[in-house]
Every structure is written in C-alpha cells, then in structure tokens.
C-alpha cells in the first residue's frame, strides 16, 4: 500500500517548499491589513523549520535526528535555493544541519500558562533561516522544473523512503506558461512507497472564505485556481486523517490544495501537510 513508509534515519523523507517571491507578495493578505504576505509567509516557513527541528529532537545526546531533508526554493526575481546564512545556495539540507545553522537567531516574547491559571510572558529564541522577498514576476514553471531536477536523484537514492512532499505557495498565476505540464512531470517521480506529493497553497488577495482541500473544482473562481487544483495530489490516508482531526471536511477525493488561504490556514496547511505517517 502506498504512503505507509515509516520515516527513519535510514529512510528519511524530503520536504521541498516552492515559494512565490513575486512583486505581489508585498501586498497584505486579503482583508488583513498590516505586514505583507511575503513577511508573514517567511514567519510561517521559519516557524515550520523550527517545529521540524524540534520534532526530530528526542534526547540530549543525539540532538536532531536526520529524519528529513529540507529545501526552500524561491521564485520571483530569480529561481533558486533561498535559505540564508551558511546554508545559502544549498538545495536540500539535512534537518540537523538546518537546526544547527539558522541565518540568525531572534528573541521573541510569548505568553504561556503559569500553572496557576494565569499567563506569564517568556522569551524564546526564534531562529531565522529565510527572509521575505517580493519582486518581479512568477516563474512557477521554472521552479517546478528545478524541483524535478533536485528530487529526481533524491528518489533514486531513497527508493524505500516515504516519497518527497513538495509544497508550492503562491498568490497568483505563473508568468512563464502553464504550470500543469511541469507539475505533472514532477508528480511522476516516485519511490516504492508512492508518487511524489505536490500540494498547492494559494494565498488570498481578497477577503473571503478559503476553499479548503476540495474534492472538485466547484466554487473555484478562475482558470488559475483550477490549474492549481488540477496540479495538486490527492491527500494520502494519514494526512486525510490528520486534517479530519483538525476539523476539516475531507473526502476520499480531497486534494492537497487550499484556495484563498489566510495566514491561519497557511500555518495549519503546513502542519497537516508535513505530518509524518510515523517517525522511528
């Protein structure tokens, strides 16, 4: 059965983000004035890398276990890897190296329960790997082709692993052609455990309810939304269960696609879409 491989250090998994860095990403989320989509998305990606690092940490002796290889590809003024600091220029990085090499570490305040029903503020370290960029066009096709060239050798090297998960995050249409053919080629990559999973997250430009994990094209407003839907993989069973557990209406034909997502849905999507079947 597909999508059942346990993720282990011998058989790691791979998560590749494709991040739209085009000019329109400098606008705020629809109906949410304030910081730009690019800034809030950078926060979400940094937060996810933080959570992945922690997910792979089990004891003080071994530190972060290499359950994942992770890459972040930006597409906008250029198409290529966008992690900063020592990781600059690398396409796929073992999660332990990610954890050990943030570009910088910021301190942030957060409120936590004090154990007696109140809240106290504490300072935590918040590592930053990825900074916002918002400029030029949306060369999504080129990004999908680059993803293929990165992941084709990866699946050959890891035939027994859970297949790679590619999460494409964009707020608009591709400016370099129809992204469906390169997406189709990308989805053909496979390990013994199944085909590569391509999930698409469309960020909102206007206020309005997001369309979450749809089973068909009903309600999608335009050709570009339908393109992204058609490019998206069906959710494998364990992710369907995770999404149901978070209260989403999920059917057997649900795809890894959210249209007009606000930042809350972005964060939930990243969490659910990268939930492992099992970590050993």
């Amino acid at each position: 059965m597909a999508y059942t491989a346990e993720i282990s250090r011998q058989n790691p998994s791979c998560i590749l983000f494709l991040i739209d860095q085009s000019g329109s990403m400098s606008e705020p989320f629809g109906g949410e004035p304030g910081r730009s989509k690019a800034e809030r998305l950078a926060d979400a990606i940094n937060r996810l890398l933080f959570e992945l690092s922690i997910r792979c940490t089990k004891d003080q002796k071994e530190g972060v276990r290499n359950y994942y290889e992770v890459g972040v590809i930006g597409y906008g003024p250029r198409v290529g890897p966008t992690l900063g600091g020592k990781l600059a220029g690398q396409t796929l990085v073992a999660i332990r190296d990610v954890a050990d090499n943030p570009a910088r570490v910021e301190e942030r305040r957060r409120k936590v329960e004090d154990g007696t029903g109140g809240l106290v503020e504490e300072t935590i370290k918040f590592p930053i790997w990825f900074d916002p960029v918002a400029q030029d066009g949306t060369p999504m096709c080129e990004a999908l082709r680059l993803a293929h060239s990165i992941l084709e050798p990866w699946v050959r090297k890891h035939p027994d692993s859970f297949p790679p998960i590619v999460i494409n995050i964009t707020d608009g249409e591709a400016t370099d052609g129809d992204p469906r053919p390169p997406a189709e080629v990308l989805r053909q990559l496979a390990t013994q455990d199944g085909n590569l999973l391509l999930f698409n997250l469309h960020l909102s430009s206007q206020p309005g309810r997001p369309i979450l994990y749809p089973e068909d094209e009903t309600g999608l407003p335009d050709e570009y939304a339908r393109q992204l839907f058609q490019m998206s993989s069906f959710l494998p069973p364990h992710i369907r269960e995770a999404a149901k557990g978070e209260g989403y209406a999920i059917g057997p034909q649900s795809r890894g696609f959210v249209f007009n997502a606000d930042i809350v849905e972005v964060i939930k999507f990243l969490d659910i879409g990268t939930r492992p079947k099992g970590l050993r």
Partner: protein
Amino acid sequence: MLRLRVQAFHLPKEGNRLEEYEDAWACDAAVGRLAVADGASDAFESRLWARTLVQSFVREPPSPEELMRWLESRIAEWKAGIDWARLPWYAAEKARRGAFATLLGVAFGQSLRDVTEKASSCGHWWALAVGDACLFQVRDNEVIVRFPLQQAADFSTTPPLLSTQPDYNLRSLEALRVCMGECRPGDLFILATDALAAWFLGELEAGNHPWGRWKELTSQQFHWLVRTLRRRGKMRNDDVTLLLGWTE
C-alpha cells in the same frame, strides 16, 4: 509467606538499536514490586522519564492520593538528569515541552497499608496505571484480572500519559486507574507494554492461552516470538516489555 520470582524481557522497535528502547521496567522481587513504563517517542528524554518512574515506583510506590506530590519529586529527578546549560536551542525548546510516559506499577503485600509501609509479604497486591501498559493475573490457566484495559479494541494512539509538565498531569490523573486483589501460590502476574498487551488481549479474545509456554521462557524465545508476530503483522512494531512475576 509467598515469594515472588520475576523474569524480565524487552526488545526495541525493529530497526532501532537497543539504546533507543524507550520503555522501561524495574522490579524488586524481595520487596514485591514491579513496574513497566512506555516513554512517548515524540517527546524529549522520555526514556529517562520512563526509567525515573519505574525505578521510583519500586523504591517508594505512591498511594493514589499522593501521586501528584510523588510526581513532583520525579519531575525534579528528571530535570536533574538533563544538562540544561549545554542544550542547543531545539533541545531546550523540546525539553520545555516535556517528557511523557505511561506507567503501570504493581506492589504486593498483606494490604495496601503494608505496601506503602514497605512490607514484603505476599497475599494481596495493589496496582496503579496511567495509560495502556497492562497487568494480567493468571490462576489455574485462566486470566482472572485484566487491568486497566479489558479488550484489544480499547487501545488508542493517544493513551493517557504522565508528564514532566505538572499542568498536563492534572488532566492525566483523571485517567488514573487503581486495582487490588489477592494472590495465591502458583499465580502468574504479567505486565506488558502496549504492543504486547494488545496482542495478548486479542489472543484471549480468540480463546487462546498465550502464556502457555512462558513458564521456562528464555530471552531468545521471547525475541523470536516478538519478531515472528511483527513479521506476520500480528504485533505493532513498537518497543516491547514483558515482566513475568510468579508467586511461589
């Protein structure tokens, strides 16, 4: 006076090294105390936490009423086992989120009062459980006690757990289960962590006597049994711990 003879078996998850085994067990046959725990593998230093719980149970078992205070001391022991000053950011954050484990402890004595006063004579036993590690008492080739879970379908992926986070424990203690009984010479007490316990209950439901050949069980036979069951898909691939306590 009854005597207790104890055999302990354990095996890590297939594919993991022995030092990655995150269950724990402890026993003191002379005093009549046994405990097993299952550390949650997605948390931080759960192995250390599981070990702290079972060793402390055997050394000084808590009465259910004083469990919260007992846990405070265990949390302090767990914290003392971590080199906080040298933790990198990810380990510090994971440690802040805590360690989690199930616990099953069994203590023998004339009465519950004797148990807490460190008496060593058999005759009665008392057990506490948080989570899905299970106790079975076998007499005359029949299981006469199943505790705390009664059937294979009772297992879930989110059992109650004891944590190094006191707030979390307030909720877990609602799931605390306590059981008492009496024992006679020839009784067998079986303590098993979840994967083995789930298989065991399934066997009981099928009318089988899975302990039938355990009188002279060797480590080698135990390893063979577990590996065979895993390979046949009859036992989930997980750390496995089995304690057998024979009253004589």
